[in-house]
Every structure is written in C-alpha cells, then in structure tokens.
C-alpha cells in the first residue's frame, strides 16, 4: 500500500488518547497497589508467622533496601516503555539491587556450609510467596507496561520482575521473619535473580509491538 494512503487511513482512524502518566507517577500508583496487596497477604499469612526473635537491625535495613529497590525498579520499567527518555533510572535501580544484596550479605553470619543452605527446605515457603504471591503484581504491572511502547522489551521485563521480586520478598520476610543468613541470601536473592533472568529472556514475547494493522488502517477498509 502507498505510504500516503496509509497516512490518510491513520488520520481517518484517529481517536483522542490521553497521554500516559509520567513513569514516576505510574510507579507510585503501582507501588501503592502492591503495598496494599502485600499487606493483606502478610496479615493473611500471620497464622504461620515464625518466632521473630533474633530479627535484628540488619533485617530491617535489608527490608528498607528492598522496598527502595522495588520502587526504583518499577520506575525504571515504566521509563523503559517511553521512547526517548534517558536511561539513568536503570542505573539507579541496578545500584539499589546491589545495595539490597549487600545488606543481606553484610547482616549475615558467614559461617555455613552449602549443604545446609541448599537443604533449607523451609525456604520453599518464601519461594512460593515470592513467585505465586508476586504473580498478581506481575500481571498488573505487565498490563500497565503494555500500554507503553515496547522499545526495550528485555529491560522492561527484567526491571518489572526485579520490582515484583524484591517487593514480594519483603512480604515473604515480614510473613516469616528470620534473621538474615546465607540461606536468605541464597534463596531470596537466587529466586529474584532467576525471575529477572527469565523475564529478560521472555520480555520480547510479552512486550512485543502490537501494531494497529486492522483492515481499516492497512487496506482503507469500510469508511465513514
């Protein structure tokens, strides 16, 4: 089809659209929803709450670092679906993730053996909380992100998974508080890293271009 005809068809099919909210505002909106949802989940899980003794300052510092990481990662995800915006929000989110992992390492006693770490079957509950509990958050975030432009699908999906993973991790830690250890680092950090890796690889499948190739646009279609 001729490009001039395409332009005429696009003009004919033009409908008013509201500009998307800015990334920071969208990130705050999603994070507030996530906080409510995780709060409800934590309260619902209080029946299985473990003994909170031994939870020290390091635990709370790592939770704060995780919340900050979640906010920055969601902002980076929302920024990545707006063409032409600078990429520094990704750097901040990446640094925050490193700080979060650093707080886990710094507050953990590092006398352990890998067999004990890997055999910590009680951590499957945390993994379940992060993956299954985080799924609705990921779904909402994906729907919001798909309203943007998929110019960096891998990065979009990776930062979305990081945001969901670390915030769901906070929910898991508040439901089942325990002092930070190599087990927490390996299991919580590992599952978040796995989520981010899978999302980065699958990003193009979820956030591909969905061009408006309806017959009315491409062929002219029925008019009027």
């Amino acid at each position: 089809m001729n490009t001039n005809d395409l332009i005429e068809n696009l003009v004919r099919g033009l409908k008013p659209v509201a500009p998307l909210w800015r990334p920071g505002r969208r990130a705050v909106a999603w994070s507030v929803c996530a906080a409510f949802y995780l709060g409800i989940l934590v309260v619902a899980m209080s029946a299985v709450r473990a003994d909170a003794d031994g939870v020290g300052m390091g635990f709370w510092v790592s939770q704060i670092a995780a919340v900050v990481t979640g906010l920055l990662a969601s902002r980076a995800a929302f920024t990545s679906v707006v063409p032409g915006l600078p990429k520094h929000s990704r750097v901040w989110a990446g640094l925050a993730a490193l700080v979060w992992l650093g707080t886990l390492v710094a507050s953990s006693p590092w006398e352990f053996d890998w067999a004990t770490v890997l055999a910590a079957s009680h951590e499957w509950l945390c993994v379940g909380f992060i993956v299954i509990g985080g799924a609705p958050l990921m779904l909402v975030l994906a729907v919001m992100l798909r309203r943007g432009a998929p110019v960096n699908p891998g990065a979009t999906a990776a930062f979305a998974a990081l945001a969901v993973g670390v915030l769901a991790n906070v929910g898991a830690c508040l439901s089942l508080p325990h002092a930070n250890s190599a087990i927490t680092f390996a299991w919580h950090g590992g599952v978040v890293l796995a989520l981010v890796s899978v999302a980065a690889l699958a990003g193009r499948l979820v956030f591909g271009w969905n061009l408006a190739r309806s017959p009315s646009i491409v062929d002219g279609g029925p008019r009027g």
Partner: protein
Amino acid sequence: MTDGTPPNDSLGELMRAAQQGDGASYRELLRTITPRIRQIIRRQRGFAGIAEVEDLVQDVLLSVHTVRATYDPARPFVPWLLAIVRNRLVDGARRYARISRREIHVDEEEVTFSEPEANDDIGDVEDAAALREAVRALPEGQRQAIELLKLKELSLKEAAEVSGASVGALKVATHRAMATLRRTLGKRRE
C-alpha cells in the same frame, strides 16, 4: 512557556493536538515526519531497495500511531520519534535476518509465459485443454503460485500478500510447478 511544551517544538505541538483527536494536525505531522523518517532509513539501510525502505517507513508510522499516548507533550518530540525509528530499524534488521535464514534462493528461471525461452518446451503445446488440466492437477500451493504469478501476472510481493506465502516460498512453488508442467506435458507428447 506555561504549558510545559518545549519552545519551538512545532512537531510536539502537532502531536499534542493529534492526541486530542485533531486529524488535520495529525495529517500535517505525519506528512512532515515521513520524508525525515525515509531519509534516516535510507542512510541506515543503504543496501535496501525502495520497497523495503517504504515498508520500514510504514512500520514506523504504524508504530508512532500505536504508541502516540506515550508522547509526553512536556518533552521534545524528535528524541521520542528517533527512539521509535531506531527500535523499528533494529527489529527490521532482525526480521530480515530471520527471513533470510529461512528462505531458499533459487536461480531466476525463464518462467514467464511471454518470454520466448520459457515457451521453448511448452509453447508448442497444441492442446490448451491439456495445459489447463495439467495446471489443475498441480498441488494447491503450486497451482496458486502459477495462477497468481503467471495467469494473473501479479508481482511476487502482491502474490505473497494475496496468498499469505512468503516471496521465497512462492519462488520455490513456481519453480516446482514449472518443472511438473514440463514433465506432464512432455509425457503427453511422447
């Protein structure tokens, strides 16, 4: 500047009006940016033919249309547009590489009925009904390729759009169909 629009960003103003549903502004915007997009694509894809460049231009226009809500009127328009163009160019290159890997290139055969060379071996078929029958007996894909390319004389691109098959698949189907017709009509003559 009180409304947040960057100064001298006339394209941004047109897009802002387009977001509000102003068709005339949208037409002006698209007509203004199309030659610039075409120029960028030609510069980046020096090896691409006219049709391929035009395909990419249309891809960018459709992308701009689809994600026009992501344009923030408070920001300059050109970086927003360039990010989309860059992305569509990368996607186009990726698509091209994928298709090239799948396609089978065959040498151009003299398969046009109007070419004398093509009629050397079947041009002397006295019985037109035999030819029609031979075409009818071809497998579906080969028959469709012959009908579209040789009888209706569509271009490869047009035939690909009509049939849904790729250009490469149509070339292969035509090549095979011509070989089958030669065999069938040759046997009939013997």
